[in-house]
């Protein structure tokens, strides 16, 4: 009887975790925004997650898939499109910093509950910024959807912020800015979870409606950390 009682304590939590995981794989009801860019195709639906991600650093995208810093392994993970999408490749130094907390909206869709993302394209002299408060993009008032998935590195995991069809609106500043704001997408991969954090295996990708796509690129310096739920 005691043995059965202990089983009742242990196994319901396992079953509950399974049910939660199953529930979290439901397709989100992402709204169809009227200004959806026609050059980006819709990837698979977002998965339900509650992660916290923080990091920053520098990448030097070259647009050359044969370059040693091109992360060909992670780029297609999660159904993400091959770069450059949109064209052209965004090259030169790109520095960034971010902090995003994921959660769910009332319909179970994966959203960014709060977040700040800063990306600087040094060759273009453009500074992009995204602010998300209470699940809403501060620049357009729309929710920002996210997706988290395993990548091509053992134990690696990536997050995409601004999944279709909404993407996310980033403010543009700097001498190279060509419009006040535009649709963008941010993706990072943490490939050294639990280990020493200077493996240079973390990666970042930035997609801009009007200025191109860096492609998934390993960090030259800095760090990307998925630090729990």
């Amino acid at each position: 009887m005691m043995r059965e009682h202990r089983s009742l304590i242990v196994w319901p939590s396992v079953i509950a975790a399974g049910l939660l995981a199953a529930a979290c794989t439901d397709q989100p009801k992402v709204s169809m925004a009227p200004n959806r860019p026609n050059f980006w195709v819709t990837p698979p639906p977002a998965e339900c997650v509650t992660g916290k991600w923080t990091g920053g650093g520098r990448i030097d995208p070259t647009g050359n898939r044969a370059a040693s810093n091109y992360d060909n392994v992670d780029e297609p993970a999660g159904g993400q499109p091959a770069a450059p999408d949109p064209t052209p490749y965004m090259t030169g130094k790109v520095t960034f910093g971010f902090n995003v907390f994921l959660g769910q909206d009332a319909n179970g869709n994966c959203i960014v509950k709060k977040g700040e993302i800063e990306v600087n394209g040094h060759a273009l002299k453009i500074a992009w910024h995204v602010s998300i408060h209470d699940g809403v993009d501060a620049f357009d008032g729309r929710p920002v959807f996210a997706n988290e998935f395993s990548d091509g590195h053992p134990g690696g995991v990536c997050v995409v912020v601004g999944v279709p069809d909404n993407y996310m609106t980033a403010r543009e500043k700097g001498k190279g800015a060509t419009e006040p704001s535009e649709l963008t997408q941010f993706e990072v991969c943490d490939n050294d979870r639990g280990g020493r954090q200077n493996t240079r295996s973390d990666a970042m990708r930035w997609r801009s409606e009007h200025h191109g796509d860096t492609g998934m690129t390993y960090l030259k310096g800095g760090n990307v950390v998925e630090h729990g739920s």
Partner: protein
Amino acid sequence: MNGKSMHWVNRLAALGLVVGLVAGLAAVGSAQSVGGQAYSTYVNTPLGSSAQSPLAVLPAVSGTDGAEADAEGDAMNVAGALSSDFLNSITSGEIGAAEAGAQSTSSAASVNILNGLITADEVVANVMSSVGQSGAFSAADGSTFTNLAIAGVGSLSGDSPVTPNMNISLPGVGYVVLNEQIPSGDGVSSSGLTVNMIHVYLQNLVGGILNPLTGQIIGGTLQTTGEIIVGSATSRVAS
């Protein structure tokens, strides 16, 4: 599987849960702290002054949380001392169950110090600090100069590595330290690093005596009368 086996399986599962929970709570409960800041320029000279700008300081982070701060400026000009544009500073930090970290980056483009004495197309300072089961450490990977030139000394084409704390004399002006790195922490439970990519120290000779025969000054001491910093980034962690 008989009842006895199931009994031990359940015991092991329960033990695993307890160990996991205790380990997790211990990690979360430790007094981890992270800090960071970044700024593109700082000028304090007789020619003019400008505070650390644009300055990004990491807000307090506690629990299992994270934060990011950034600042930007279109241009900086302190006549005769420094001009630059596209100035950006970012810092972020996080505390997780297994690790804590901070990372900062600052940059400045079209850098011109002391009327062309030192120029660079771009300067990027980039640091990160991390503490976890493997210890604490910091690194300045990603810090770089682009087309750095020092009048009377030489120039570097493109992105070129510069040995940390390279000290170069600037006759009549003082000296400059390139890729100045200031570490902190014990490397076990704490670590920090400040990188100043260009740090000019302005100096004057004080207290010397003019030799009337040679026209040279004898004795005296050099005193720092000002400084200019371009590209500064700091990160630190402790557990």
